[in-house]
């Protein structure tokens, strides 16, 4: 290698470091400018109205600086079941395991035999979630609704969409709408509409024959940054598939129950048995078991 090339190679780390430093200094300047702007426009720092949710202290404390755990509730999984299938839940997970030892089960009927497949049931569960939130440029929060408003969800959302969809009211095309706890989120097609509405702030809106004063403020919207999903087995349950179209619903239920309760067939006490007859479909709902 020539001396010149050698020197260039040795200079390289220096070059890339210099480039990095230039980038970092620019980013730092950017952030310092943003900080100055925030200080010069204190109205941005005014806490905008947020719906109030009553909270209570029930004794949860932490001595150290650990990140608090959020409360997770209403966990529900909807599992579609195809026609010609059944969901069998046994009292004892060991029985379920035994039943699963055979992939195919032959169910004896008077004149013939039904061949069905069994397989374990696995449900997708979210194990980690990471959400970031920031002020939305396209959405607003409408609040100030009286407690005894006599409109249902659809009616309320429709009336708000009509009112805030009109340019003469300072609004514009509404793209999304959602009822929240103590407020309504409206999403618009244009940033300018949002800026305009937030600037005006107070509106008198006709809702169900009366006029009500409502407030419009910026909306903090959330976005999922990361979500991890894992398959969780349901130890006491078994999926029965490919049930041939030979029997009616109630008869099929009985036949299956008898078969899966037979210890000679590896079965045992059945807690629940749900059948989706061939040609139909169903949605099995699972909820979190309270311990």
């Amino acid at each position, binding site marked *: 290698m020539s001396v010149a090339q050698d020197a260039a190679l040795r200079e390289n780390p220096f070059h890339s470091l210099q480039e990095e430093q230039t980038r970092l200094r620019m980013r730092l300047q950017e952030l310092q400018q943003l900080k100055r702007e925030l200080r010069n426009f204190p109205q941005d720092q005014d806490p905008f109205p947020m719906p109030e949710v*009553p909270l209570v*202290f029930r004794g949860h404390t932490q001595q150290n600086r650990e990140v608090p755990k959020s409360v997770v509730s209403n966990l529900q999984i909807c599992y*579609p079941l195809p026609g010609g299938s059944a969901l069998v839940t046994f009292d004892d997970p060991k029985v379920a395991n035994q039943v699963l030892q055979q992939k195919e089960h032959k169910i004896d009927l008077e004149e013939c035999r039904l061949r069905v497949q069994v397989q374990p049931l696995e449900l997708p569960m979210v194990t980690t979630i990471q959400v970031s939130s920031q002020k939305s440029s396209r959405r607003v929060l409408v609040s100030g609704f009286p407690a005894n408003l006599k409109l249902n969800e659809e009616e309320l959302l429709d009336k708000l969409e009509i009112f805030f969809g009109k340019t003469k009211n300072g609004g514009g095309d509404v793209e999304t709408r959602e009822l929240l*706890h103590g407020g309504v989120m409206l999403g618009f097609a244009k940033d300018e509409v949002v800026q305009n509405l937030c600037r005006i702030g107070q509106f008198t809106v006709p809702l169900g024959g009366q006029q009500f004063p409502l407030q419009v403020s910026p909306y903090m919207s959330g976005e999922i940054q990361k979500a991890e999903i894992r398959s969780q087995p349901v130890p006491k349950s078994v999926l029965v598939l490919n049930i041939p179209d030979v029997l009616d619903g109630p008869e099929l239920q009985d036949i299956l129950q008898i078969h899966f309760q037979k210890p000679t067939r590896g079965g045992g006490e059945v807690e629940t048995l749900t059948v989706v007859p061939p040609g139909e479909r169903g949605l099995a*709902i699972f909820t979190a*078991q309270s311990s």
Partner: protein
Amino acid sequence: MAAGEDNKNQIHKEFWQDEEFWRDKLKQRLVDEMVKENIELKMEIQKLEAELQEATGNSEIKEDIPEMKMKFTALENPENDSQYLNISCSFQVSSQVPYELQKGEALITFEEEEVAQNVIRLGKHNVNIMDRTVEVVAKPVLLKPGVRFQVHAEVSKMKINVTEIPDELPANQMRDKLELSFCKSRNGGGEVESVEYDKEAGSAVITFVETGVVDKILKKKDYPLYINQDCFRVVVSPYIETHLKKFQVFSGISKKTVLLTGMEELQMMDGEVVEDLISIHFQREKNGGGEVDMVKISLNQPCVAYFQE
């Protein structure tokens, strides 16, 4: 003189090597300094970003969902076709709002809102703690904003993700090859509705006509892709969509829990004993109180209390 020349050459060489040595040393020092400067810049940037995040109200929530046992509760028959195309998982997340209790402060939760408001209205309370009377001040609790939202995850029964697709063919041809390979039922495939292929990323999303094909294919982690005479193993994984609903930042307001201050002097005492005495005092109607749900005092070190719905 040859020897002299040699000598000069030697010294010259040594000098030259020394110069190189020192030049390298200098370069290394400059590189090291630059690395240090860059690290410092990065730290300052991180600090400013956090400050701006707090000021503008942007926040991040990271949550590990504890494992919960699921139980079959019902079989439904909704009209909506789309509900049969995915296995969906949904849940509600509500942040627990923290409140830092300082030394000498306590939180007391009453059963009734009116009692709590009355205690605050009365302001000063003279509470008998053992051998002395402490002037306790009751105040409302000022809470930071919290966040609540619903998480919806949908695992498709009709689509799968395919990755590690080799970059062997132009996009159109590869799309065809993918369709041909994934419709072979002997490999677990089925009739393909559509193929979305990203040549640059080497990935694709395959939509099948029937449900059930996805389950068969996902029994294994890979799948054979045939390109002319060669067979490549591409990676298959579930196609999952996640989204948030009803995302809302809210202002927590404490109606039943009251902040009690002014008990710094009780530092030496047993926390539980003081809590019981406070509870007894505020249970008495004649003291302006009522049914007490719970009391928590922080005597020797600040502690963080969590408020929930």
